[in-house]
C-alpha cells in the first residue's frame, strides 16, 4: 500500500497535520468566543488546563467523569463496527442503573463482593437487552436502529423515573426520589491511593478487551465485514442477524454497566441523577475516537477534563458553567465536520501519474 517515501509523507500529513489543523481551528474559535464574552482567552485556557489536568485533584475529578464516558463511548463504538449508528446509550444507562439497584436490593445480606457483582451484572444484562432489541429489530424487522435506539432510550429514562417515583420508591427519600440504597458496605470503593472509584478500571478494561477482540480476532473481522458489506458477509456464510444483535447487545452492556457503576460507586441507589447526559456525550466521544475502542479512552479523558474544568471557570471568573457546554459544542462541531478533510490529499506529494500507476 505505502510503496514510496512520499506515500509515507502523505500518511504522516494525515495523521499529524490534520489533527493539528483541527486543534488550531478549535483554539481560534475558542479564543474568539472567549474574547466575545469579555474574558481573556489565555486566562480561560490556563484555567481549563488547571481545572482538568493541572493538579492531582483535577485529575481525579477528570477521571471520575471519564469513566462513564469510556463506557458510553464504547456503547456507540462497538455497534458501529457492524455499521450501526446507535444513539440510545442514555436510556440503557438509566435502565442499567435501575436494574443494578434492584439486583443490589435483592441480594441484601450476601457478601459485599457478591452484591457488587450482582449489581454490575444486572446492569450489564439489562443494558444489553435494551440496546440488543434495537439491533434485533434492525435485522428482523428492518427498523432503523438509530431511530429505534433513540426511542428506546427515552422509554428507558421514563421507566427509570416511573419506578423511582412509583413502585420502587424508598419512602425515606423525600427530597430526591430514589430506590432503596444498596447499602454502604456494598459500595464499590476507590482505587488504591486515589479518590477515583474502581469503575474507571472496569471501563478501561472493557475498552481494552473490546479493542483486542475487535482488532485481532475473527469476531472483530466478521463485524467489520458486516459493517462494510452485508451481502458479502452473507455470502461468506456469516449469520448477520446474530452478529448485529450481539454487537448491539455488547454496546448496550457497556452503557448498562456505566449506569450500574454510577449506582454502586457514586449514588448508592437508582435515581434521576444518573441521567445526566453521559449517553449523549458518549456518542461524540465515539465519533471523535473514530469508533476505535482504544482511542475512546484518551478522548473520554480529554472530554472529562473539559467538563471537570467547568466548575473551576465558574468559581474563578464568575462566568456561567454553560461556557464549558459552548466550548464542548464548538469542539464537537469542528471535529465532526473535519471528517471531510480526512483521506483527502491536503497537499499533493505524488505526481498524478505515479498515483494512478500505484493503484493499478
Amino acid at each position, binding site marked *: 500500500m505505502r510503496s514510496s517515501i512520499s506515500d509515507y509523507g502523505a500518511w504522516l500529513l494525515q495523521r499529524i497535520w490534520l489533527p493539528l489543523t483541527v486543534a488550531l481551528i478549535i483554539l481560534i474559535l475558542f479564543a474568539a468566543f472567549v474574547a466575545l*464574552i469579555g474574558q481573556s482567552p489565555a486566562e480561560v485556557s490556563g484555567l481549563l488546563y488547571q481545572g482538568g489536568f493541572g493538579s492531582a485533584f483535577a485529575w481525579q475529578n477528570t477521571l471520575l467523569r471519564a469513566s462513564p464516558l469510556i463506557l458510553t463511548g464504547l456503547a456507540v463504538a462497538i455497534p458501529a463496527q457492524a455499521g450501526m*449508528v446507535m*444513539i440510545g446509550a442514555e436510556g440503557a444507562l438509566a435502565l442499567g442503573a435501575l436494574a443494578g439497584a434492584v439486583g443490589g436490593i435483592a441480594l441484601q445480606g450476601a457478601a459485599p463482593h457478591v452484591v457488587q457483582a450482582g449489581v454490575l451484572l444486572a446492569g450489564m444484562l439489562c443494558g444489553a437487552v435494551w440496546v440488543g432489541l434495537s439491533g434485533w*429489530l434492525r*435485522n*428482523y*424487522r*428492518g*427498523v*432503523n436502529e*438509530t*431511530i*429505534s435506539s*433513540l*426511542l*428506546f432510550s*427515552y*422509554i428507558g*429514562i*421514563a*421507566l427509570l*423515573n*416511573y419506578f423511582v*417515583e*412509583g*413502585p420502587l420508591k424508598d419512602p425515606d427519600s423525600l427530597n430526591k426520589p430514589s430506590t432503596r440504597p444498596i447499602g454502604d458496605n456494598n459500595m464499590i470503593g476507590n482505587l488504591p491511593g486515589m479518590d477515583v472509584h474502581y469503575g474507571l478500571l472496569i471501563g478501561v478494561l472493557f475498552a481494552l478487551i473490546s479493542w483486542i477482540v475487535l482488532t485481532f480476532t475473527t469476531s472483530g473481522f466478521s463485524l467489520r465485514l458486516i459493517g462494510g458489506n452485508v451481502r458479502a458477509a452473507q455470502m461468506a456464510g456469516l449469520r448477520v442477524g446474530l452478529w448485529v444483535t450481539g454487537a448491539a447487545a455488547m454496546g448496550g452492556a457497556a452503557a448498562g454497566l456505566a449506569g450500574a457503576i454510577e449506582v454502586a460507586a457514586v449514588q448508592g441507589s437508582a435515581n434521576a441523577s444518573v441521567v445526566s447526559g453521559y449517553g*449523549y456525550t458518549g*456518542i*461524540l466521544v465515539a*465519533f471523535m475516537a473514530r469508533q476505535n475502542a482504544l482511542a475512546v479512552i484518551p478522548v473520554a479523558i480529554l472530554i472529562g477534563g473539559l467538563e471537570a474544568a467547568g466548575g473551576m471557570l465558574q468559581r474563578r471568573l464568575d462566568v*456561567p458553567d*454553560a*461556557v*464549558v*457546554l*459552548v*466550548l*464542548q*459544542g*464548538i469542539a*464537537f*462541531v469542528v471535529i*465532526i*465536520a473535519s*471528517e*471531510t478533510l*480526512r*483521506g483527502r490529499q491536503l497537499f499533493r506529494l505524488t505526481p498524478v501519474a505515479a498515483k494512478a500507476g500505484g493503484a493499478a
Partner: protein
Amino acid sequence: MTGSGLGLWGIPLEVLAGAIRVSTPYLLVSLGECITEKSGRINLGLEGVLVMGAMAGYATSLASGSPWLGVLAAGLVGALFGLLHGLLCSMPRVNDIAIGISIMLLGIGLAFLLGKPLIQPQAPTLGAIPFGFWSDSPQIRSALQINPLFLLGVLLAFVLHYAFRYTRWGMRLRIVGDSEDAARALGYPVLPTRISATMLGGFLAGIGGAFLSLYYPGSWNEGLSSGQGIIAVALVIFARWEPLRCLWASLLFGAAGALGPALQSIGITSAYYLLNAAPYFLTLAILIATCAPNRTLQGAPGELSLVR
C-alpha cells in the same frame, strides 16, 4: 384549573386545552423537521435550535417590548443554526446525525450562557385569542383560549400539504429528497435545496421555542424544554413525512402529554412518566408494524440516511 366546576367533564376539557397548548411546539418543530427530512437530511439538532429560539425570542421581546418581534428573532436565529447544519452537512463524508447532536449541545450551551440574565425579568408575552367568549363557564373560556402560534401551525400544515403535492417548489424538494441522481439529471441544485430546507426547518423550530418562552409557560429558564425538539423528530416518522399527519400526531402526542397533569389534578400521580413516554412507544409500535427487512418505511424520502 381543576375539574371541580364541571365535575369529571372538566378532565376531557382540560385535556383538550392542554393538548392544544402542549402540541403547539411539537407541531411547529415537526413541520420544520418534515421539510428538512423531505429534502433528504435529518437534523437532530432541533432540540438545541428550539432552546436557542426560546432564549432569543424572550430576549428580543424583553428588549423591544413586542413579543411578535421576539417570534421573528427566534425564527431567524433558528434559521441561522439551520444554515450552519446545512452547510456543514454539505461537505462530503460529514455525518448529519453526529453534526445534529453537536449542534444540539452547542445551541443549548449558548442559550444557557446568553440566557443567564433573562431568568429574572418578565418579558411581554403573546396574548391568546379567546374563542370561548360565548360561554359563561370559566372552564370553557379558559379551555378555548387558543394561542395564535397554534393557528399558524395548523394553517402551515395545510399549506405544506398542498405545497408538497402541487407546487414546483414542493416537487423539487421531494425529488432532491428521493433521488439525488434524478434531481441532478433534471438540473435541480441538490445542495442549495437541502441547505434552504434545513434553514426553513430551523426557522420553524426556533418559533416553536419562542412559543415556550413567550406563551406557555411564558418565561425563560433552563428547564424550559422537556425534549420537544427530539420528540418532534420521532413525530415526523410517526406521521410518515406527511404535514397533515404531523398535525394529528402533534395533537395526539399533546393529549398524551396533557393527560398526565390532568390526572395529577385528580390525584393520580405515578402514571405521569409513562404517559410522557407514550409518544415514543407509539412511534416505536408504528415502526415495528410497518417496517419489513426488504422494504423501507412507506413515504420515507429515499435519500434520508435514516432509512437507507
